[in-house]
């Protein structure tokens, strides 16, 4: 306790705490209040994804020779490997669901309106990022499902007029899907996307706290003037 006082005096932790957790939130009654938890739920799942992802990276090799075998090693040999991979697998799907529901809530309640447009735009980028995470992560187990799903996905990118063929080549790291595709997707999945994601989430959260939580839309009494 003494240490906490010492630290608080020097860092202003109490003020940070008050700003983060002591802020005013709209008073909402009934089941509607649950809709306001979707963003936090998505953040929580994201933390799970980060933790389990780091753990999986300890035993995973992004190489065609070893990817599938190392995933099987995680599943069959490492204690709780199946649980950790299961969390990451299901968490990925669940995160997409939560992020979409979160967006729907914001849309339906009109919470994206002035002054929260930037929060909304950053949020849309975050939704796209979550999908990019899902797409790049899906290839990593390097089984039949992963391989052909990525073949389909990259071919869809190839349908883009003009830039399509270049985009496919860039995604695959060459003419054909292979070792370079796997390492590229791995780098995207564990290095590039997480950095962008962290920055955008910081921005998103900052804006949420800066503007405060929006009030739910209220029914206004209509007065007839005829």
């Amino acid at each position, binding site marked *: 306790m003494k240490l906490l006082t010492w630290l608080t005096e020097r860092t202003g932790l109490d003020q940070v705490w008050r700003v983060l957790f002591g802020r005013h939130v709209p008073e909402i009654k009934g089941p509607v209040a649950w809709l306001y938890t979707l963003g936090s739920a998505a953040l929580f799942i994201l933390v*799970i994804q980060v*933790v*389990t992802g780091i*753990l999986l990276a*300890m*035993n995973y*090799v992004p190489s065609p020779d*070893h990817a599938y*075998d*190392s995933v*099987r*090693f995680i599943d069959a*040999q*490492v*204690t*709780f*490997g199946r*649980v*950790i991979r299961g969390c990451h697998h299901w968490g990925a799907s669940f995160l997409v669901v939560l992020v979409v529901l979160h967006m729907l809530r914001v849309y339906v309640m009109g919470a994206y309106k002035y002054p929260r447009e930037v929060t909304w735009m950053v949020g849309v980028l975050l939704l796209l990022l979550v999908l990019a995470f899902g797409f790049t992560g899906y290839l990593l187990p390097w089984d039949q499902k992963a391989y052909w799903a990525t073949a389909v996905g990259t071919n869809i990118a190839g349908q883009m007029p003009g830039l399509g063929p270049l985009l496919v080549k860039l995604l695959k790291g060459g003419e054909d899907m292979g070792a370079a595709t796997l390492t590229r997707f791995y780098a995207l999945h564990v290095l590039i996307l997480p950095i962008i994601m962290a920055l955008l989430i910081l921005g998103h959260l900052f804006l949420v706290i800066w503007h405060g939580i929006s009030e739910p839309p209220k029914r206004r009494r209509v007065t007839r003037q005829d």
Partner: protein
Amino acid sequence: MDELLNRRAFLGRCIGVLGTLIVAMLGGIGGRYVLFPLFQRRREDWVDLGPIADIKPGSPMKVEFVQRRHDAWMTTERRASAWVLTPNGKDFVVFDPRCTHLGCPYRWDDERKQFLCPCHAGIFNIDGGVVSGPPPRPLDRYPHTVRGGQLLILPNPTPAAA
């Protein structure tokens, strides 16, 4: 509990308890996952050298074999050999085929009944003891066992002390 525990404090405590539970569960599972190597027994890759009846008593035999080794998700194969000898068909001695001086492969001289190393003229007797030359210790031996009439050896790359 006193009357200070109002609704806000109660919910705060609930959050604390639930949060602790979640962190404990994740930490426990994740921690055990990370500590996996500590609980992992070393996997011994025993090699089957064939039926013991094939090993003639008397002079040592050089046996070639392929050792399949397990390294996490990888299985690698290594070609290697060992010197096997048995005085009576029941007791066996298996020597590491590398001279204990600098690791040269030695050979058996049937006339002198000695192992000769060509590199620096190290000489060992049939029990592996140093007769002359620079080797600092007797020949290294591999652990072995007989199971179901088959001779099994454990040829570790780093010689186990015999």
